[in-house]
């Protein structure tokens, strides 16, 4: 089960991910986060405090957001990532791609 919220501010996007982002939920989440794929130069801050689980399909969504942000010259920050998910990021090498808070 996933809950996804986007808040568009003047200079950035605030995203909240809550729940388990498994392959089943990925399609819907991708659709919701579609606008972020081209953030038009705005930073994207993703609050992952309540993100309990992420599978490779979820990781792919994050990569797409990152590619778009980089193309626009902005960054993607992941906030409050849990240790378990940080391990997954380490295994896939994502740990060096994103910024964390």
């Amino acid at each position: 089960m996933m809950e996804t919220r986007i808040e568009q501010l003047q200079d950035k996007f605030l995203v909240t991910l809550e729940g388990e982002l498994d392959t089943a939920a990925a399609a819907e989440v991708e659709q919701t986060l579609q606008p972020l794929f081209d953030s038009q130069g705005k930073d994207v801050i993703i609050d992952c405090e309540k993100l309990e689980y992420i599978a490779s399909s979820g990781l792919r969504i994050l990569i797409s957001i990152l590619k778009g942000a980089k193309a626009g010259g902005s960054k993607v920050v992941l906030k409050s990532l849990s240790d378990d998910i940080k391990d997954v990021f380490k295994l896939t090498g994502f740990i060096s791609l994103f910024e964390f808070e």
Partner: protein
Amino acid sequence: MKATSTRLSFLSSLKKRKGLLIIITAALLLEFLSGTQYYFTHCLLEKELELRAESELTMKAILIKSNLNDAEEVLNLSMWKIQAHLNVPDSTYITMRRLVSFSPLIQGVGIAFEPYYYPQKGKWFEVYARRNANGEVETVQIGGPEHDYTQRDFYRQAFASERGSWIDPYFDNEGAKGLIPSYVRPVFDRTNTAVAVASIDVSLERLTDTIDNRHIYPSSFILVLTEDGKPVLGPSEERISRATTEFVMQLINDSTVTRQPSRSGRSKVIHFDTDPRDGTVFYANMKGQPHWQIAVVCYDDEVFASLNKLRVLMLLLLLLAFGVLLFLVWRFARDEKLLQQKILEQERTDGELRIASNIQRTLLPEDESLPRISDVQIEGRLIPAKAVGGDLYNVFERDGKLFFCIGDVSGKGVPAAIIMAITQALFRNIASHSHHPAHIMEQMNEASCRNNKENIFVTLFVGVLDLPTGRLRYCNAGHEIPIITSTITKTITSSLPLDAKPNLPIGLFNDFKYEMQETTMQPGDTLFLYTDGLTEARNIRRELFGRERVMRLMETCDTTDAKAFVDNIVMKVQRFADGAEQSDDLTLLAIRYTPKEEKLILNESLTLHNDVKEVTTLSAFIKEVLARLEIGKPLAPKLRLALEEAVVNVMEYAYPTGTKGEVGIRVTSDGQQLKFIITDSGISFNPTEVATADTTLSAEERPVGGLGILLVRELMDSINYERTNGKNVLTLLKNVKIIKCKNE
């Protein structure tokens, strides 16, 4: 290498120096000997010269004397006739003429009477008969006031002595018209009163002829001088130049010129050094009248001609000897060098052997590196021969399968060792991307055929044993057929050669098609692989160990332990060889399949459709199972993730798009290992051979796929894929100790 070549050249130069020293000493000795010989020969020739010269002088003197004596005799013997016809003055003409005609030696004969002896003839009456230029005898009366012979020395001398005497040659314008030696004597009448002077002139020409033939040396000549050094006889001007003759004369007459008595004392010796020829003059006084001096001149170059020739010969011989010696020394040095080179070569070969055996030793799996897996016992042994042979073997485990190979490189020494090293590396590399023995073999063959000018081939056997199922896939490339032994009971075993096609060794034809074969190993079976070092081991009687013996050996050997088994075979071979030298590498590899019987404490299944939406069901399922096993964070989410990724992979790729299919999931645990077994009946798809994502790439560079498999590999301990009965079976394994399992 450099050090030894320097040492080599130093040694050879030392020997060369010794050799040269010997040659130089020998040459000096020879030179000394030849010098001594020269000196003695020179002395000898000098003695010989003196002998010859003096005998020449003696002989020529005798010849001259005898001619002079003849002339003397002619005149003396005619005295009675002259005396008898004294009263007939005109008879003198006839007498004179006859006397001249007597011998060509006589140039002229004359008789000069006392003044007014014949009153009718006047005061002066001298009849002279001579040979003229034409050789005719003409008689003349030469006495007259212009020629008052009574005042002349010859006349006076003759009257003074009562006998005849020879007078020095004087220039006689009237009579002989030349420089001639004369013998004069008084003529006595019956009353023994001297009434006239008779003279006989000897032809210098004739005299010269007698002495100017036959020379002791080619340019030698005789010179006859008067007592006071005036020339009498000499060589013809054609032969010896006037200048030379005068020069010699001068030498004899000049008292300042040094002269020595000869060794015998019979002559005097003058050495002269003139350009271009040096020489020696021997001269002596002729005994008796006319007290002439006779000299012989000899040139050094002719005297010592033979010596000089000898000298040249000696020099040539010396050079030849020198050359021969040099040649011998050079040969000796070269032989030494060859010997040294041979020794070096031998050392090099030995060195190579050491390198080769080091290569082999380093690359073989050490006992520690052999995989320690509970499902198999592995024992490998390689006993190299002295001339390292190029045997190889390798065993490693990957994704729940045991990959192994055994091989034999053709040839020996370093080249074989290098190919062996390459083949090992090739196997490890290729077998980590493919679990299909035929594919592995084909790729190895292709790689081995590349850059293989010497056509070094390798016999090889490649096998892949699937540990969960015992499924053995293999491919042979010209190698010894392995033997598979089944233990029926502890004492009864059955050994059979594996049903393997021979095919061709790798490295020969790069498009050869290799076929895979398969069988199944039962628990307890031992697969025994070996190289021809075993079958072709010889004993001292040159008998082969042979395959038969190997088969029989298998049947009698205890195969309950791989290590014991190999040890036994090694011992039996070495006993068979009985001290004979090992000619080839001996390699043995025993693989015993000992799968543990699974005693499961958990065995749960779930079937899903190939729809990612059903992942929710999967998540619930796995959460429940893990909770039962009391597996919590941080392991539980990881296991869940691994399972999800693997299942999603199958869902997305196993079945063609649009097709509905099933995916079976089974979770088991035997208390030691947790297994996820995912089955589907889709297309044959091996996720373990998909390249995993490169985690070092940047975001832009990342390709889309590969993450899932990466996560599965990282999170689980091993992945095993098998295709069995038309189904893909993927087994994920994690070593997790479960103490207890809560039952549902």
